[in-house]
């Protein structure tokens, strides 16, 4: 497009409204619906605002969309929505480019020919539905419904419930989600006994010690945390960030402690040593509500070592200093600070989890919270309640569905790997390739882009190629669904109904209503509606399990429970936490709605509901472990390894505990296996550099790469636009003769990539870091061919227990590219 000075002047004389659709002339407008052109040219220019929820990441921010004659032109944060309180991240601000993106899939498409080289042929919705439902009906006739596998991404709440409802009504135990969440919760499951991600009371904490959790950029809801952080000057909170690369969070923290990648657990235990040795831990909590702190004797009169003595023997500061690269003086200082400050909060995430020893590291980090007794208290850790949703009518399963649901989950790790999880992307891939426990027939890919994230690229591609029939539900063509046989275009979040409730780690129970702000631009359909219609087409009990006309009805039904409970309030102006607490104390509630319809209308108008009032739970209620206490010694881990051993014996296998542990790459022996401990990461020794990755706000997990503005902003902090860079410490740069801006090769034993170097002191020597999110080979014109994908050179390593990809588990060498 070209704008000449004359055109430019003409714009202002004539039809300035055309600005919305395109500057010069109206030729391009031909592709736009006639009603739109008419509105833009002749509309009365009436401005309205609609509230909805941003769907570009898991953060669940409330947004307000500005519409001129019903056409979206601008997005800002919803100031009354409690999660983001008017704040937004760059990606969300740019969401209209997601809606108007020229690379959106506009109509259902069928692949003709081979993946990547073949062609996409448009087909009608009726035909697409016919193809899918015939296939699904055939599977039911053959009584092999379990061969349908659904691979979702980050969906939660009602959408997740709807899909799992579809799966069980149809008769497949195989609904999985490709996001690390199912793997991330494993350490919490071990120490707390429940897989809910806890919430942290940032506002009342005095010290926040974060092990690798880059909550301002990569957390569940970065804007929620930015809001909390921005009050810390007034709160006098001290933030300490422990990680090898200075992330946005570390840059804003009061203190940055660089640590060698993969040694977080050792440092946490070093701090535990200081707390125990100097008796700075919460004795009352530890005696009453924890298990395995002191030495103990089990039912079989066998003596076990307690956490106290294990730590005192093994994690003295000098040794920890040697492992982690953090000086022993600093370890003492940090430990004392932690122990001597009331309300010191410890959290972990990011790099602490992204390694082969992630689960043990996280257990060690959480053990500090156990020592400090940080549960259910001011400035501590707590668990929020589920919103008071009504239940959907029970799923009706016929004999075919019952038979299918009884089958073993397909992606369940086989052999001995990942004993604590039902899904890992690695076991998913391997099981498809080996037809183990059974072959799969149809794969539903539900948004997301697992291939781009994969660190086992070739096998994942093979698995996709091997699958007989893949249906993708997405708005864009990306690396993964290039391999699909059929793509159904779904609405973007601005055109669709959904709900966004209880974002993990956000500190109150809440529901955001995502409503369509505009009619679908193209021939796309609502994700929820597609599943309901599919169920109807399959018929029988599958259809009977979905007594709803559309997905909106499902949401309305769920919200009825919230209305009936009378709890919480619609997040509107003036409804602040203090006020709600005041009402609660006096036994009052806000019931300004005479009917459910009125409540629903108000909910759509304001965008959400929340309930900041939480019934305090007793400490003996929150831990769901076998002992009912916070477990230093994880009985769950012990039980699952014992079960594994028993099963192996039944199968006449020669495995004993020793061989199982070595297969799991666990080097600890005896009681230490079940206690938080430091496992050495099996790095390749000769390579000099630890390789780490991070995410930036304009891109998040690669999703922002098809938005040109976000590509331009990708590296605004280092002045690198539309491309990847590698951060390297000046000490190493001098060693290798690298100057800022030089191109260098980064080489692992798998592959190598060429990146531009940014020499900055904010990274530990012998560590290099590359942002994740670029290097797409598909995903539209703005994403394809820009930057590199760091995951492509990573070793195929996973957390031993949880099956989470070990993104920090690779070592590399570098050289100047001539």
């Amino acid at each position, binding site marked *: 497009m070209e704008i000449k000075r004359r055109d430019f002047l003409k714009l202002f004389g004539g039809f300035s409204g055309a600005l919305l659709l395109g500057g010069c002339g109206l030729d391009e407008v031909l592709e736009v619906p006639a009603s739109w052109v008419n509105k833009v040219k002749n509309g009365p220019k009436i401005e309205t605002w609609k509230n909805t929820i941003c769907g570009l990441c898991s953060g669940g921010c409330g947004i307000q969309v500005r519409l001129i004659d019903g056409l*979206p032109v601008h997005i800002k944060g919803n100031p009354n929505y409690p999660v983001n309180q*008017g704040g937004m991240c760059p990606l969300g601000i740019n969401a209209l480019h997601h809606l108007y993106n020229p690379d959106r899939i506009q109509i259902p498409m069928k692949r003709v020919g081979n993946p990547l080289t073949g062609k996409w042929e448009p087909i009608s919705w009726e035909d697409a539905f016919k193809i899918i439902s015939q296939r699904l009906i055939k599977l039911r006739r053959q009584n092999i419904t379990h061969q349908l596998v659904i691979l979702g991404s980050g969906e939660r709440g009602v959408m997740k419930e709807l899909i799992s409802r579809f799966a069980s009504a149809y008769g497949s135990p195989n609904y999985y989600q490709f996001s690390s969440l199912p793997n991330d919760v494993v350490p919490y499951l071990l120490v707390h006994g429940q897989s809910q991600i806890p919430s942290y009371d940032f506002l009342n904490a005095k010290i926040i010690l974060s092990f690798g959790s880059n909550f301002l950029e990569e957390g569940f809801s970065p804007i929620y945390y930015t809001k909390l952080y921005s009050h810390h000057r007034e709160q006098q909170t001290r933030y300490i960030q422990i990680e090898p690369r200075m992330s946005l969070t570390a840059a804003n923290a009061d203190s940055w402690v660089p640590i060698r990648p993969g040694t977080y657990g050792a440092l946490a235990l070093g701090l535990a040593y200081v707390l125990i040795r100097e008796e700075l831990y919460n004795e009352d909590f530890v005696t009453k509500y924890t298990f395995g702190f002191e030495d103990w004797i089990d039912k079989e009169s066998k003596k076990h070592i307690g956490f106290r003595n294990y730590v005192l023997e093994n994690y003295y500061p000098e040794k920890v200093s040697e492992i982690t690269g953090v000086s022993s003086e600093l370890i003492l200082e940090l430990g004392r600070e932690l122990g001597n400050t009331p309300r010191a909060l410890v959290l972990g995430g990011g790099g602490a989890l992204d390694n082969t020893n992630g689960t043990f590291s996280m257990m060690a980090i959480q053990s500090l919270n156990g020592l400090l007794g940080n549960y259910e208290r001011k400035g501590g850790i707590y668990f929020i309640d589920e919103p008071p949703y009504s239940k959907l009518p029970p799923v009706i399963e016929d004999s075919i569905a019952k038979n299918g649901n009884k089958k073993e989950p397909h992606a369940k790790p086989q052999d001995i790997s990942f004993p604590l999880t039902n899904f890992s992307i690695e076991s998913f891939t391997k099981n498809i390739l080996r037809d183990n426990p059974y072959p799969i027939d149809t794969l539903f890919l539900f948004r997301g882009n697992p291939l781009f994230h994969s660190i086992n690229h070739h096998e994942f591609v093979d698995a996709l190629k091997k699958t007989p029939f893949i249906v993708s539900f997405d708005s864009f063509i990306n690396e993964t669904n290039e391999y699909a046989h059929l793509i159904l275009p779904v609405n973007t979040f601005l055109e669709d109904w959904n709900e966004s409730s209880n974002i993990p780690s956000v500190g109150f129970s809440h529901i955001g209503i995502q409503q369509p702000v505009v009619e679908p631009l193209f021939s796309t359909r609502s994700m929820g509606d597609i599943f309901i219609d599919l169920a109807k087409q399959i018929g029988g009990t599958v259809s009977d399990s979905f007594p709803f006309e559309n997905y909106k009805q499902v949401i309305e039904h769920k919200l009825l429970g919230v209305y009936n409970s009378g709890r919480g309030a619609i997040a509107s102006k003036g409804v602040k936490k203090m006020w709600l607490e005041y009402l609660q104390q006096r036994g009052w509630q806000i019931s300004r709605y005479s009917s459910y319809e009125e409540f629903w209308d108000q909910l759509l108008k304001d965008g959400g509901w929340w309930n900041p009032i939480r019934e305090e739970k007793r400490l003996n209620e929150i831990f769901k472990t076998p002992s009912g206490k916070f477990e230093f010694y994880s009985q769950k881990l012990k039980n699952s390894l014992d079960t594994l051993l028993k099963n192996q014996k039944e199968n006449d296998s020669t495995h004993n505990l020793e061989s199982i542990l070595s297969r799991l790459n666990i080097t600890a022996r005896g009681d230490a296996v079940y206690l938080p401990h430091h496992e050495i990461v099996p790095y390749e020794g000769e390579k000099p550099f630890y390789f780490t990755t991070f995410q930036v706000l304009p891109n998040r997990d690669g999703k922002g790469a098809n938005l040109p503005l976000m590509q331009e902003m990708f590296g605004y902090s280092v002045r690198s636009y*539309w491309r990847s860079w590698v951060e390297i410490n000046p000490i190493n740069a001098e060693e290798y003769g690298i100057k800022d801006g030089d191109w260098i090769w980064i080489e692992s034993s798998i592959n190598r990539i060429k990146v531009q170097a940014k020499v900055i002191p904010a990274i530990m020597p012998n560590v290099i870091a590359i942002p994740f999110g670029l290097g797409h080979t598909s995903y539209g014109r703005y994403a394809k061919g820009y930057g590199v994908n760091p995951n492509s050179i990573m070793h195929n390593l996973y957390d031993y227990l949880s099956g989470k990809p070990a993104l920090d588990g690779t070592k590399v060498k570098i050289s100047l590219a001539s």
Partner: protein
Amino acid sequence: MSKWRMVIDLDKCTGCGSCMAACKMENNIPIVDSKEANEGGVLNWMDVITQYHGDYPNIEVDRLPKPCFQCDHPPCTKVCPVRATYLNPDGLVAQIYHRCIGCRYCMTACPYTSKVFNWYEPKWLDGPYKCFNPDVSIRMTGVVEKCSFCSHRLMKVKEDAALEDRPILDGEYEPACAEICPADAIYFGDAENKNSEVYKLSRSYRASRVMDDLGLEPKVYYLSKRS
């Protein structure tokens, strides 16, 4: 007469870049492609500047969101041969794009490097939908542009206030960056209004202005414990 002031609290700012994105969307700023961007052609009205101080591991990072400082005595307006940039009656430094001849004298004169030049043909989202903000004009190749404190918003607010025959309320007029900031680090308001947040904050012990000794009276204050 109002005196518009912006106060940016660097102790709260995290450097997330939301202000940059909000500014680009609000003001129809062209998207610059990879080649042009890496040659230095990025058009930032609001720019977040990152600087590292000190040696590893004792490093401090400065992140400075930098809009146009809208000086009370702007040096850029004095050098413009065609009066394409001038101090408007609201006290804001305005640009008249179709009068600009692209000589870039004003860019040279600005000590804060707040002005940017349209070197390339402007590009927006491909396809028929550009999602422009209908309140802001688009610019052509060969003209200088810069932050306007979202003066199109002021125009609207002034009209509303005049219709209702009342003064402009505190917080009624706010640029896109201040509105969106997730850290609540950007304050905006009338320094004549003694009840306004900016009046108080611009007198804080933490407040300072960039290159204050030049006597240009910039309208943007920074708050920081470190100076």
